[in-house]
């Protein structure tokens, strides 16, 4: 048993130090389609500028500091001290819809939980509603 544990530990160490070093830049645990599926949500509006402004407002509601914003590219990036999260949101227009995609990392790990993105998109939908009705 001791031998097994020793071999296991050695294998773990080997795995930890050598497996990720070279392939890290392209590492992904899920397929591209799978990832895009939960990171993307489309909204029934063609006003890209308005969606981008609401993305910023939502990120502010969630305690993010906006670090980058580019209307031409349609990207907004921010950092949250509260969740220790780095997040980038992109908005692109497709016909009469705007497609919003978010990706985030927490503590040097990618957020791969669809529920987290659902929460973000729910908050964004709420913000779009408030703006559309000029509530606040």
């Amino acid at each position: 048993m001791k031998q097994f544990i020793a071999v296991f530990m050695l294998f773990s160490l080997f795995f930890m130090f050598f497996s990720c070093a070279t392939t890290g830049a392209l590492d992904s645990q899920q397929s591209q389609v799978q990832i895009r599926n939960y990171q993307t949500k489309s909204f029934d509006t063609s006003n890209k500028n308005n969606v981008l402004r609401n993305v910023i407002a939502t990120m502010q509601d969630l305690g993010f500091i906006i670090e980058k914003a580019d209307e031409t590219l349609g990207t907004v990036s921010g950092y949250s001290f509260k969740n220790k999260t780095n997040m980038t949101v992109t908005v692109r227009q497709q016909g009469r819809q705007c497609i919003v995609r978010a990706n985030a990392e927490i503590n040097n790990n990618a957020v791969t939980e669809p529920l987290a993105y659902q929460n973000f998109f729910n908050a964004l939908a709420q913000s779009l509603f408030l703006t559309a009705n000029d509530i606040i």
Partner: protein
Amino acid sequence: MKKIIVFLITIVLFAGCMNYKDLYTLDKNYLERRNIETRIFDTQNEKELLTACAQVLQDLGYTIKESDINLGVITAEKNREVGNKVGKVAMLILLGSDTVYEDVQKFYVNIVTTPTKEKAIKVRVLFTRKSWDNHGNIFSVEQITDTKVYQQFFEKLSQSVFLTTNGI
């Protein structure tokens, strides 16, 4: 020995797990916070309002890090020392070199402008503060929620709008 190994493996396995249920959810007071952080300005000239915002940030000693006029965004930050040097030296002499105290702080500010349907412009500002101790470790991170800070900022901004409009 075996128990220790099992314990360590269990820790490694569960370390990566976290609760995603509440991640990126809005808290109950977010609308109240939005209200405190927002002021409506009776103008349609977003560019001029953003310029006045940049001016007031310079008044307050901030360095602008990011801005996009099309989205109405300005991000700025400033580094400041916490307390005075004399007090810190006195503390070290009295309590020893291992004493930990809040040493430096960084303020982050985000300003976002949004045109409203009533032909006015909403300005929303958000202040965050991060500080480090004398050993270089993070001491505190907080979103500034003091209503007075936001009131004072908007007073300064109103003044800045007036000064900028009049070319001062």
